[in-house]
């Protein structure tokens, strides 16, 4: 799949991601946190909980409730964004929550809330997928019981060719963008969106490419978590 017909603007192979780095445990006051740099995206996710539910009437007796907010800083975009939550941010908050929730073993935390806060400090194409990777890493960092990590990546079409992880430059002439999130060990796609124009063949091809991308992200997430664990243990030994 990685044999190129047309060269991508960035020089990447069709199944090649932009540069990605993930770091867990970056915010001291949070129960769990992660910083992801994904292309030019710089995104922090923090998890608080399990904690008391406010307001009380939202409490559920047999499981945790999950709250999620995706928020862009005013300086994160090309032209300054107004500080209040836009309709786009509200929708993305919802789809991210629904993408991450199936991985959380909510029944282990009855009558509590688990809060996921995502802050976009610098935005680039694919910020919702980047955010999911950060959020899922932050959940694991918080020690929340999970069935699997949630890994996310977009496939799309640019210059007539189906490619992994469409970037901003490709997006200008891009024909389609299909972000997906999945639980890699459970073959379950929990975020799926599409905007653009794909034939049936391209649709199936994009799905396969996105799967490859998600698996790459999965490994980066695991690395980030084990690196933090290793360092912490290291730190403890040094005491």
């Amino acid at each position, binding site marked *: 799949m990685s044999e190129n017909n047309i060269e991508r603007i960035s020089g990447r192979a069709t199944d090649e991601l932009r540069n990605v780095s993930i770091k867990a445990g970056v915010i001291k006051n949070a129960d769990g946190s992660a910083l992801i740099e994904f292309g030019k995206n710089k995104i922090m996710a923090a998890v608080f909980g399990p904690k008391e539910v406010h307001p009380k009437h939202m409490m559920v007796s047999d499981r945790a*409730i999950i709250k999620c907010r995706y928020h862009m800083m005013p300086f994160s975009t090309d032209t300054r964004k107004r500080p209040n939550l836009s*309709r786009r941010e*509200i929708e993305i908050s919802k789809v991210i929550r629904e993408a991450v929730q199936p991985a959380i073993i909510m029944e282990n935390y009855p009558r509590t809330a688990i809060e996921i806060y995502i802050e976009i400090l610098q935005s680039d194409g694919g910020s919702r997928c980047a955010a999911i990777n950060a959020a899922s890493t932050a959940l694991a960092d918080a020690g929340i019981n999970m069935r699997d990590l949630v890994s996310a990546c977009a496939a799309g079409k640019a210059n007539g060719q189906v490619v992994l992880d469409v970037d901003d430059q490709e997006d200008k002439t891009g024909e389609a963008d299909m972000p997906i999130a999945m639980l890699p060990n459970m073959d379950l796609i929990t975020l799926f969106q599409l*905007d653009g*124009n794909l034939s*049936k063949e391209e*649709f199936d091809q994009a799905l396969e490419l996105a799967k490859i991308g998600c698996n790459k992200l999965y490994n980066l997430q695991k690395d980030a978590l084990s690196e933090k664990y290793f360092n912490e243990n290291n730190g403890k030994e040094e005491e």
Partner: protein
Amino acid sequence: MPAVKKHRIVDSITLDSIMSSLSDSKRIDGRGLLDYRDIEIETNILKDKTNGSAKVKIGDTEVWAGVKVETANPFPDTPAEGVMTCNAEMLPICSQYIEPGPPDEDTIELSRVSDRGIRESGMIDVSELCIKEGELVYSVYIDVAVINEDGNLFDAVAYAGTAALLGADMSKFTIEDDEVKMLEERQKLPIKSLPISTTFAKIGDKIIIDPNADEQEIASARLTLVTDENGKYVSAQKGKPGGFTFDELKELSTISKDKGEEIRNKIKEAVENGA
């Protein structure tokens, strides 16, 4: 943080009856897994104040759409393009579960997915909505009201919005000596394609099409796929906190195209009858 909406209550008898029907690959109302309910489409129902309108019923779900075409200044970064906005509203008359107030996250998602279905399919050619570059463009508002809620609003809103657009007309302008003048004659909107939305829900390991309100409530995942006349996929949205497998997505994409073709013909017919 967007409000987590109060959920519909599905009683245990209904739940049991949905589940036992599904185990026989049947629906609680007798439908097969991949059958739509009856779809009724009527256009031109609000002639006096709108440029186009439609009423759509899918079973007991009922929505009304109105199109208003106004003129506006173009956005600075797209001086030669008109503006198109699609907005859905859950009226409190539609269900005991809806309280009046600012749109909750479900309604915002519904609005935005409807908007993208129309926008991404290129249904309207926004470059033909320009009257005078940098100065005056058409601004097309599609507002859709949910009158009675019995599931599958994503499809109902999409059908009503597109049917209203197909039947709509707008003023014609000419430019004389750099001045914009409105003409007497009217024209149709620059419609380029007719995207069709199809919506699936997953309950247990069964996947059904056109879920009613109870089915939708107990489903683990929802999928809306929008296809155009050329069989291309132009928009998609998964909803609810569950998921689909890769194989399921591939299969549903095939079904979506076939069902879409049937419904597209229904809408075309309704618009012709309403004209």
